[in-house]
């Protein structure tokens, strides 16, 4: 395996996030290293999604600092995060319902497109050239995720699982540096999960994309992550390699239970 885990790329220090009286995150520190697959697990309402939202600027924590590639990151808006190469998928699918699969994925490439709206209006020439160039990239992603046959379907009509896959495609189309995945395999059967794992591993492998993954399927998490952080009620209760975490008594108590 060619993959080499690199330096810390995102470093979160003492993050606290509150919504009114609800403490979503309390004093959490952890980091993500370049090229690794970093999982976040924890019971429902533990603050996992909030964590992702903090990383890509949807939420702004009241306390704590975020270092990105070693530099302190000021208050950052989501689109700025995107410009820095952070892409993500959402727990509640956030596809653009009125658009086709192809268009949805094409939106993933918007930051790489340089033509302005006047060029788009005139189309023939620069805009068309650009459109086709990016279309080729998008087709690669489509092929990679094996969704060729639904290209022209409006996403609203797709079953849940495929929508998740399209969302992944949209994120991948951005050729992100860091990919944040919020329960990408919820609502899939084992076969589909296996496919999804394959995709994630391949992305990580071929493009060296750093991946932050939230997932409730412990099989998946333990099999594919390099390191796992465990949250409970907004607090960090465990952090380390899968095996370490699996045997951490706090984690077992709070999350894994004895049935596993």
């Amino acid at each position, binding site marked *: 395996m060619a993959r080499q885990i690199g330096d810390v790329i995102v470093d979160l220090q003492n993050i606290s996030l509150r919504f009114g009286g609800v403490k979503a995150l309390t004093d959490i520190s952890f980091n993500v290293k370049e090229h690794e697959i970093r999982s976040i697990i924890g019971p429902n309402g533990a603050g996992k999604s909030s964590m992702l939202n903090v990383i890509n600027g949807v939420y702004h924590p009241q306390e704590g600092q975020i270092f990105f590639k070693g530099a302190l990151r000021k208050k950052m808006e989501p689109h700025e*995060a995107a410009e820095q190469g952070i892409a993500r998928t959402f727990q509640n699918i956030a*596809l653009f319902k009125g658009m086709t699969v192809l268009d949805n994925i094409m*939106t993933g490439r*918007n930051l790489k497109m340089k033509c302005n709206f006047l060029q*788009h*209006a005139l189309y023939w020439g620069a805009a068309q050239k650009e459109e086709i160039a990016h279309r080729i990239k998008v087709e690669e992603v489509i092929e990679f995720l094996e969704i060729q046959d639904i290209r022209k379907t409006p996403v609203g009509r797709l079953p849940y699982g495929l929508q998740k896959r399209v969302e992944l495609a949209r994120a991948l189309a951005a050729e992100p540096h860091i990919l944040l995945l919020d329960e990408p395999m919820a609502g899939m059967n084992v076969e589909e999960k296996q496919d999804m794992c394959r995709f994630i591993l391949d992305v990580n492998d071929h493009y060296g994309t750093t991946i932050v993954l939230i997932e409730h399927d412990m099989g998946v998490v333990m099999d594919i992550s390099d390191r796992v952080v465990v949250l409970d009620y907004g607090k960090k209760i465990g952090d380390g390699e899968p095996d370490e975490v699996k045997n951490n008594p706090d984690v077992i108590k709070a999350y894994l239970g004895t049935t596993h």
Partner: protein
Amino acid sequence: MLYREAGQFKATYAEDSQIFPIRQDKIGFWVLMLVFGVAVPLLTNEYWLKAILIPVLIFSLAAIGLNILTGYAGQLSLGSAAFMAVGAFAAYNFILRIEGMPFLVALVLAGLTAAAVGILFGLPSLRIKGFYLAVATLAAQFFIVWALVKFPWFSNNSSSGVVTAQDVTILGYTFATPEAKYVLTFLIVSFMALLAKNMVRSSTGRAWMAVRDMDVAAQVIGFRLMRTKLLAFAVSSFYCGVAGALYAYTYIGTVEPEGFNLDLSFKILFMIIIGGVGSIMGSFLGAAFIVLLPIFLDNVVPVIFGDSLGAGFVSNFQLIVFGGLIIFFLIVEPHGLARLWQIAKEKLRLWPFPH
């Protein structure tokens, strides 16, 4: 069996991303262009040109404008008529006040003026959403019309507030006959419709739709909300502005601010709803439908009921039918005529098999 795409393979992405990827559609389109661009002005009479076709074209343009804002970018607006007014009065003043102003340049400037005003009233959209925004756009509707009435400068101090559009002259040729005006309108509208289609099928359009469908996600993907929304307001107002100028110059000839009232805004909204929200072709279908329906009812209802009923009854009955049909269409197909047409095509494609 006529409408089969089987056997038509697309070898390149350029081919695949054409406006009409299917050959039958392309042929149909060019036939239509020929019919409406050449045959219609040669064959139809003045009534059809002046009273139906020209307004349909102009309203289509306004509907495209509104469709860009509401259908594509998802910002519900009830003020499109006001932007038409801005366009109409801007064109009038540019031509009036600048010696030798070419008509087409004035048209563009009128659109740009409307776009500037549109941006101004679009600013609140960054914070305000949905029906709140819709009601807020009424502020534009009422304020603009008020300002045009209130400051006589806009209407060159005409005592009645009405302005008479100057002659339309391009390169020394004056478009005076209905045929000439129709052809001019047709060309401008077709060209602008093409531009609009290009915008919505490329990255600009995708940005609008992304913001419409889910603005938080759009932001996460890297779209800038402010820029995207304001661009939608600007482009939309530009289209409405040009439509307003055409309304003054190639259709009615004289305009007063009050002509661009809330009713007209609603009418344009109807056009996009009936035609199809988020569809350029739907804008045309909707405009045609809304212009033709009352005329059709006007001709048909009295024939059905004869003189037996009072005139007031007939007029009110028409109103009821008009409203009823709008509801009916929404129920049958909330996505409008454009979608109905698409479904028809899908059925045709499968024909003679039901599914």
